[in-house]
């Protein structure tokens, strides 16, 4: 009965907390926080404290499954691999190289993701590879790489300790990035100012010096209004604008169209609060700007990001300690999955597939002909599937049936495939649609690395063997590549990491031993002596000068009307993560679920004779959901809010799949709905 503690990295959000997994006789029995860890410093959120529960859950998949009629039945690895290879081959014989697609996984390791993108490009010969960053921070990558040259957090989580002001936009930080939220409250406690821009009154908003409670989807007018105020009062950083930025004049001219009266009318934020926020932000040198999906999940997501980038650049807040523009990434390794090139247009390190030199480098290393044309995004793959152009899909650890917009359409797309192959921990709603399911090893059962939101690459360690016949994702891909006659040649996670660092300049200086010295390294880390980069764009931006790009306000795709008079927004709960496939296996987290999951303002509730706990029906143009109401003034009048974790009441039956033209991000944060009280009880909230 000897307990061993293995230091590893938390598998939930992208904060990248250190945790010790306590293992006794091959069974993980507990979790402990790591006091010395530079990010989490002895803390964990409720999810982290329960990270052991899904690992040891009896419902874990332990053998491959294959569809026989309506049933998924256990089969040998040999049978499943052969069937999967045949399906991939058949699809490509019928429809060409691009008739297949790979959805990689923001929860899997960098090694898994690198293997997935190599598998798609070198083995299958297609650039059809993507992952869920599409529906969280694709606009950050699109926006910030245009303005700064790099789509990641410019600064580090530790910079919050040096900031004198925190501007938090569209981020429910204490719930979704709890340990960053904890740092923000500590900063507030030592006297830093806190400004929150959010349509909901979040916990952080309650502690804020100033809460700008804007109308849904009016971020650009608000930010342009702040910029207008800054230029009007001369609060901009003139020397920074001259030395480090370009196109300042056109921005100045463009934001002149946003006088405060107009902005107040559009956003419903009082003009004096806008002025106060602009003054505080512009005149505080160490002002840390953080944002999240409240900015990105809009039809104007990329423009929203650009607007924030304009704000940070005009005030000289990029490239210095305690400041920066900081997208808080969602999943544990969504940064890494992007870095690894699990995207249709880039290889690892954001090297473009349509750049001949980059393509030649990868082609040489992999001894393969590589396709030149960027591939399909995940949503485009779904469209192609419905149209019959894409016949076979391999999904690693994602659950688009629950997480993607317009759920019926996702299901239709998956049903249209000749063959759906899923690699999963549990039989999720997506895995249930599959023809072949491979059992996956969890984070506790494999070696590898995760890259956190602050670009910190950290070790993930094997604490126990996988259950039954489960394998790491990269092992499944390697076995498939062998069946397809093009073995990738990976025998260990370290091999993949070594190949990746050779091909990826921003990771080039990293090795496992270096990462183990002090809880990881932050990229770019170009050589073995390089200490990593806590703050980007110090002397100059990655792209050279910071580019200011005027953006104009775009209305949400769907506005309330007589038939659908309320606006629905989505959010996440502290106790759940994504589709809940991991967190809902933890009894204490599951118990914390509220009885209802539609948040509605007391005024709107009263107008509909709805009380807390009452069954309600929520309808949009795309579908309807039955759940219970939570009457709360956390949401303003006219707005209702739903978390998206619950497959019993999937908010994505309602959400809009109108896309941001630049990043293809669907507008998950706003659509029009109607809400009615019901007498019939909704389905109980219980795990899958």
């Amino acid at each position, binding site marked *: 009965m000897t307990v061993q503690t293995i230091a590893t990295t938390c598998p939930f959000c992208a904060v990248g907390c250190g945790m010790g997994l306590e293992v006794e006789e091959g069974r993980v029995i507990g979790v402990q926080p*790591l*006091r010395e860890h530079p990010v989490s410093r002895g*803390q964990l*959120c409720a999810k982290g404290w329960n990270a052991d529960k899904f690992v040891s859950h009896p419902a874990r998949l332990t053998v491959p499954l294959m569809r026989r009629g309506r049933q998924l039945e256990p089969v040998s690895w040999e049978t499943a691999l052969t069937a999967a290879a045949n399906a991939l081959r058949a699809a490509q014989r019928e429809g060409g190289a691009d008739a297949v697609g790979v959805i990689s996984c923001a929860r899997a390791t960098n090694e898994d993701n690198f293997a997935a993108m190599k598998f798609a490009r070198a083995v299958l010969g297609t650039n059809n590879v993507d992952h869920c960053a599409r529906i969280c921070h694709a606009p950050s990558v699109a926006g910030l790489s245009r303005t700064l040259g790099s789509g990641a957090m410019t600064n580090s989580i530790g910079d919050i300790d040096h900031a004198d002001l925190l501007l938090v936009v569209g981020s429910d930080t204490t719930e979704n990035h709890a340990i960053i939220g904890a740092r923000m409250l500590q900063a507030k406690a030592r006297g830093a100012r806190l400004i929150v821009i959010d349509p909901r009154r979040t916990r952080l908003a309650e502690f804020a010096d100033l809460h700008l409670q804007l109308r849904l989807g009016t971020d650009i007018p608000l930010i342009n209004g702040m910029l207008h105020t800054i230029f009007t009062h001369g609060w901009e950083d003139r020397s920074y604008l001259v030395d480090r930025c370009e196109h300042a004049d056109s921005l100045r001219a463009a934001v002149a169209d946003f006088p405060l009266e107009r902005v107040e009318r559009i956003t419903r934020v009082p003009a004096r609060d806008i002025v106060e926020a602009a003054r505080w932000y512009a005149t505080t040198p160490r002002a840390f700007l953080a944002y999240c999906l409240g900015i990105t999940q809009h039809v104007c997501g990329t423009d929203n990001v650009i607007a924030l980038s304009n704000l940070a650049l005009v005030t000289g807040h990029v490239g210095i300690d305690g400041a920066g523009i900081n997208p808080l990434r969602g999943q544990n390794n969504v940064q890494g999955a992007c870095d690894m090139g699990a995207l249709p247009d880039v290889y690892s390190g954001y090297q473009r597939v349509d750049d001949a030199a980059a393509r030649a480098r990868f082609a040489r290393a992999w001894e393969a002909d590589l396709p030149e044309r960027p591939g399909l995004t995940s949503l485009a793959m779904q469209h192609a599937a419905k149209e019959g152009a894409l016949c076979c899909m391999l999904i690693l650890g994602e659950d688009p049936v629950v997480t993607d917009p317009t759920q019926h359409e996702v299901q239709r797309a998956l049903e249209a495939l000749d063959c759906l192959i899923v690699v999963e921990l549990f039989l999720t709603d997506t895995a249930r649609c599959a023809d072949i399911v491979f059992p996956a090893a969890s984070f506790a059962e494999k070696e590898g690395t995760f890259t956190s939101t602050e670009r910190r690459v950290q070790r993930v360690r094997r604490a126990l063997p996988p259950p039954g016949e489960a394998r790491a994702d990269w092992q499944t891909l390697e076995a498939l590549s062998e069946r397809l006659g093009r073995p990738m040649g990976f025998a260990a996670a370290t091999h993949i990491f070594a190949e990746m660092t050779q091909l990826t300049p921003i990771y080039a200086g990293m090795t496992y031993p270096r990462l183990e010295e002090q809880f990881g390294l932050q990229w770019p880390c170009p050589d073995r002596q390089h200490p990593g980069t806590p703050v980007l764009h110090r002397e100059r931006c990655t792209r050279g000068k910071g580019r200011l790009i005027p953006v104009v306000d775009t209305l949400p795709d769907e506005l309330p009307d007589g038939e659908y008079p309320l606006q629905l927004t989505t959010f996440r709960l502290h106790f759940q993560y994504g589709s809940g496939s991991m967190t809902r296996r933890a009894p204490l987290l599951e*118990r914390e679920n509220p009885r209802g999951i539609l948040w509605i303002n007391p005024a709107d509730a009263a107008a509909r004779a709805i009380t807390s706990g009452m069954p309600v029906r929520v309808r949009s143009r795309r579908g309807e959901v039955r759940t219970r109401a939570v009457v709360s003034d956390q949401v303003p009048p006219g707005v209702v809010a739903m978390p998206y974790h619950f497959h019993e009441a999937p908010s994505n039956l309602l959400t809009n799949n109108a896309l941001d033209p630049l990043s293809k991000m669907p507008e998950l944060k706003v659509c029009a709905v109607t809400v009615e009280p019901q007498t019939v009880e909704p389905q109980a909230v219980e795990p899958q």
Partner: protein
Amino acid sequence: MIEEAPRAVVLADRAAVDGLRVALAHGRKLFEVRRGETGSEWTRVSGAEPFDWDVPLPLAGAKRFFFPAQEPLLRWHGETVEEVLPTPSPFVLCGVRPCDLAAIAYQDRFFSADPWYARRRGDALLVGLNCLVSCAGGFCRDVAAGPFASAEFDLNLTPLPDGRVVLQFGSDAGRAILDTAGLAAASFTASDQHVLAATAATAEASCPTRPFIARALRRINARPGASAEKVIIDAEWQTLGPACFACSGCTNLCPTCSCFTVVDQVHMGAGERVRYWDSCLFEGFQREASGHHPAPRPGDRVRRFWEHKFGDEFTERFGRPGCVGCGRCDVTCTGSIGALKVLAALAGPEGSNLVHPQIAPDLPFSKGASRGEDGQVNPERERRSVSPPSLAGKGARGLGFKFLPHRALIAEIIPESADTRTFVLQLEPPVPDFDAARPGQFVMLSILGHGEAAFTLSRLARAGAAPGTVVLTIHKVGALTGALFALPRGAAVGVRGPFGHGFPDDDPACPAVYVAGGCGLAPLKAAIDVHIAMRPVGTPLAIVSGTRDAEARILRSALASWQQASNVHLIECVERPDSDWGGRVGVVSDYVGEAIAVVGARRAAICGPPAMLLATAEALCRAGLGPEAIYVALERSMKCGMGECGHCYVNHHYLCTDGPVFSLAEVRRLPDAFAAIERTGSHASP
């Protein structure tokens, strides 16, 4: 001063301890705190490597050795159920700091009847290590837990400034180790004692003085009605509340926290009933299946947690405060409201800014003078004078702490209303304990794979139930009752119990009134039946039973028989009458005055939903009954029934062992019993 043989020896140098460790490791697993990637942690060592005298306090304390984060209680396959008890090989923890020794002593008391704890704790040896300087963030001196050990240990090490080491022994097992290690002959002189005392004084002097702690503790324990600055007002707790993220870090790392939940895990026809560490800061911890929540706001839960740590009643019951000043909660709290921050915020007007706990100024860490132990520190060092473990109200523990349910078959299912049924369970084989059950006692009903919940017996062997049966009238509200309602006659379930203190049945000649709201009639029925069966001829009693509507009336045959019984005055009322209802209309509190007057009641018993209990108790008082004569059945979600899991505690009482029936006079000393209802005027959680 010391007449008996000295209870300590002096070792020549620190290296001499290595021989001791080899002796400790003989036949035992040796654990010591080691530095590593996790900071510092308890690690299995051989004893051959050097001892780390300065290793920092590990964040994960020794608690998990005796009360692990998860532990199987039962295992089943098909219908065969067995209890799973741990079988640890002997081990020793070497280098336990005084704060953790105090915490282990506290948990020894708390878990005194728990066989899982006892099995793990049984053969374990504890070797303490006194602290020579104050650690950053700890405040053991302020809560009498250090920097020198005052709690039980087998052996205890104190490195002296001159390089020698004092080795105290506190048990026969410790003394035996000394012999094995060949150290028994070492001496301990009066001058050694003087050096030890001086070392202790220096260690104490290194601890900062924090007068705000004593002030905060006085405020936490101030009686209602004390002056405004002495009593903590609700707003102060509600200001702290939003800072609690409910991460559960404090309770997980707290070395004295003991609350747990019990969960069934099933896979392919086999399963385990496992207990997990739980946290009273979770909203779901005390939320009941009905939706009622006794501590609905985060601030309520923060208050409850700290009252549990520092409340005088708990201190009295367990011999010391539930906080040992280790400082772990201050490290791990995501909302920056660990013990020191909270105590500073609660210290009153002189303490710190109460508007925002986070902007409380940093705490005074000034060096303070020793409280002056005047150099008289004895190596025997007085054990804190503690009363023996309080067994008052721990009656259920006399039955032994067991999770293995008795097997029972569903013999009969009697529909009562649309969602209420009476289940007659036949014990297989019969268990005499249940036949001796008293009115108001409850059982834990178990369905493997679906868990357990508490239900009060509705018919007793003493009043007509067949011996060997357990009769429960159950309202369907949650997952377990849903599973029960799906079972056919003849299906097997499990029962444990009976538990708790019931209604008084000592004076059957006393005219009494029984007041039931809704399904509250089921638990009261047992008391009414016993009273009717035992009363001297002519003793009158009254029953007031109210339901939402006529549909919801339960136990209709019992109601009909009471209607016919002599000297029983039955009043039935409904809140929402339909056209067929010819009886009374209203709520029970409207009719208790009449009931008391008709039978001349000198005692009353009430059972029902929380808001009804409160209104009825007030009405009974208005009608002239004293608070000692009114008995109230409080119900909470329970996971063990034996005073451990913590789900049912209200203020300083565990309802399962100290209740669930209390006199109104006692309830009035439990401000939390109805606080949520008094505040909101309803029992719905917000």
